[in-house]
């Protein structure tokens, strides 16, 4: 049982009459990359919002490791080791890249409110921030104010910030959306590396990326899980083919 890192049971969230997430029960194994796919409006982002504490479910429970986290706040959930990126880029726009990552690293390295020491002198913070920028290939932009960068670079920065908080479980909401093909190639590579030592929940529309990163797949439609299983099972599931994948032709294996 110890290799289960996250388990949701009958998770339900509605907005008025709209059932955004309905009776979602998921079990996530440690160090596996788990993709959630589905058409727009399927409830993928809402599900991530429930997992990260941005929203509370109407029904159901979420357990992370040995602990129920259903009613915890986003900061508590983050401190347990769950990092979150957003579909709509979410960074501190007036900070430089470096400052963004330093703030992220600080949340792990300084566990009390520090009013006295200038951050500049805290070398460990700078090192963590620089390391995170290096991972996403943004070192050359360290001193650039975040909002002046391209959209793709801002997405990379957001990933770097999450990495600087050293999470075990990453919730990534369409991390590749809006990236150029070179940038997204680099990020796919990074995600593949991360997937070895982290647990990933990856919401993504780019199916080639999904198949090259994830081992497990869940297909959501209208707030419900249509099918869940490993990549091969989903590829060949007729229900999924009909309901969602439609005309998708899997790439032949090399």
């Amino acid at each position, binding site marked *: 049982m110890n290799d289960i890192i996250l388990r949701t049971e009958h998770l339900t969230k509605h907005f008025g009459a709209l059932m955004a997430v309905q009776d979602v029960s998921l079990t996530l194994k440690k160090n596996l990359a788990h993709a959630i796919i589905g058409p727009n409006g399927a409830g993928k982002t809402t599900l991530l919002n429930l997992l990260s504490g941005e929203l509370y479910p109407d029904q159901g429970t979420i357990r992370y490791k040995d602990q129920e986290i259903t009613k915890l706040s986003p900061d508590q959930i983050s*401190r347990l080791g769950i990092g979150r990126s957003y579909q709509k880029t979410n960074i*501190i726009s*007036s*900070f430089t890249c470096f400052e963004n990552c330093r703030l992220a690293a600080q*949340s792990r390295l300084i566990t009390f409110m520090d009013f006295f*020491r200038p951050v500049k002198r*805290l070398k460990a913070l700078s090192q963590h921030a620089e390391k995170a920028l290096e991972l996403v290939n943004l070192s050359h932009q360290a001193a650039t104010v975040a909002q002046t960068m391209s959209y793709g670079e801002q997405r990379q920065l957001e990933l770097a910030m999450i990495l600087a908080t050293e999470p075990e479980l990453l919730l990534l909401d369409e991390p590749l959306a809006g990236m150029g093909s070179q940038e997204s190639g680099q990020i796919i590579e990074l995600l593949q590396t991360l997937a070895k030592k982290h647990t990933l929940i990856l919401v993504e529309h780019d199916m080639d990326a999904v198949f090259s990163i994830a081992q497990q797949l869940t297909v959501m439609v209208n707030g419900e899980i249509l099918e869940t299983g490993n990549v091969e099972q989903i590829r060949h599931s007729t229900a999924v083919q009909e309901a969602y994948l439609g005309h998708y032709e899997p790439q032949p294996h090399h």
Partner: protein
Amino acid sequence: MVIINRKSFFFSIIFLLLILFPWIIEDSFYLEQLTRILILGIFAMSLDFLVGYTGIVSLGHAAFYGVGAYTLAYSFQSTDATNFWYALPLSLTASALIATIIGWLSIRTSGIYLLMITLAFGQMFYFFYLESSYFNGSDGIFLLNKPEILFGSYNLFDLENEVNLYFFVLGWFIIVFLLLKTILKTPFGQVIQGICVNESRVRALGYPTPRYKLISFVIAGTLAGLAGFLEATHTGFVTPSYSHWHQSGILLVILMLGGVRTLYGPVLGAATIVLLEDLLPEITDHWKLLLGILIILIVLFLPNGTTDLFSRILFRGPIQKANKDHE
């Protein structure tokens, strides 16, 4: 070769001029005005910390200004004299306590609700003083003496002397300026500046943002209490108007005039208001109208307030680069 950062060089010159001021201009009227500016400057910097750096726009900051002043009046209640070492900590503690309560009740709201709730709390204090017979209602309280800064039984630094009082206020001004500058550079300061731009992101990074906002609120409220204490010491007069929303409103105008998010901008704003209030009445009887028009013009044409004008004249050209190179 050591190149001194132009900005810190400039600040050192300003501080030096402030220290030498009583000998440069031996006119008690101007000394008096400068003392007023410095006190208002402390008050304005405390609000800048809250509005400009934490993103909490309060319309009730004068509540703490009033608490600081009235607590000093309370220290005088039974005698004609009060010991500074007792009176100041009492004022600061009272302001901090009140700021904790008001802050705890207001920081969860934002936008217009935050304005309304802070406004309501400020006015509540105003009406409390107005109706309170203990604090002498609308007539206010005269403080016959200044607090005594006792060392043993000896009053080393007599605040009745206006030059001493000026230095006393200047000392606090410098302390507050450096304190806030320092806090902004610490991990705590980084977090609140992040909150100011994007609170939900900072929260998702693992920071309990409500707690950070509350502490920022308490720091700002306590320093506003210090300003109230100094103003009461300076004028020797405490009235309900210390906490009136006009006071909070004019302070926000001062921030706009001077430019938020700079600390020194609001001080320039305070100086602008004090000087205009002096000069304009000599030109016309309708000086308040003129003041209003001037404020609108400054806000329209200098988006960052008088700070803009100032840095355009003083730091023209390479200042931006010089700073960057140095970091």
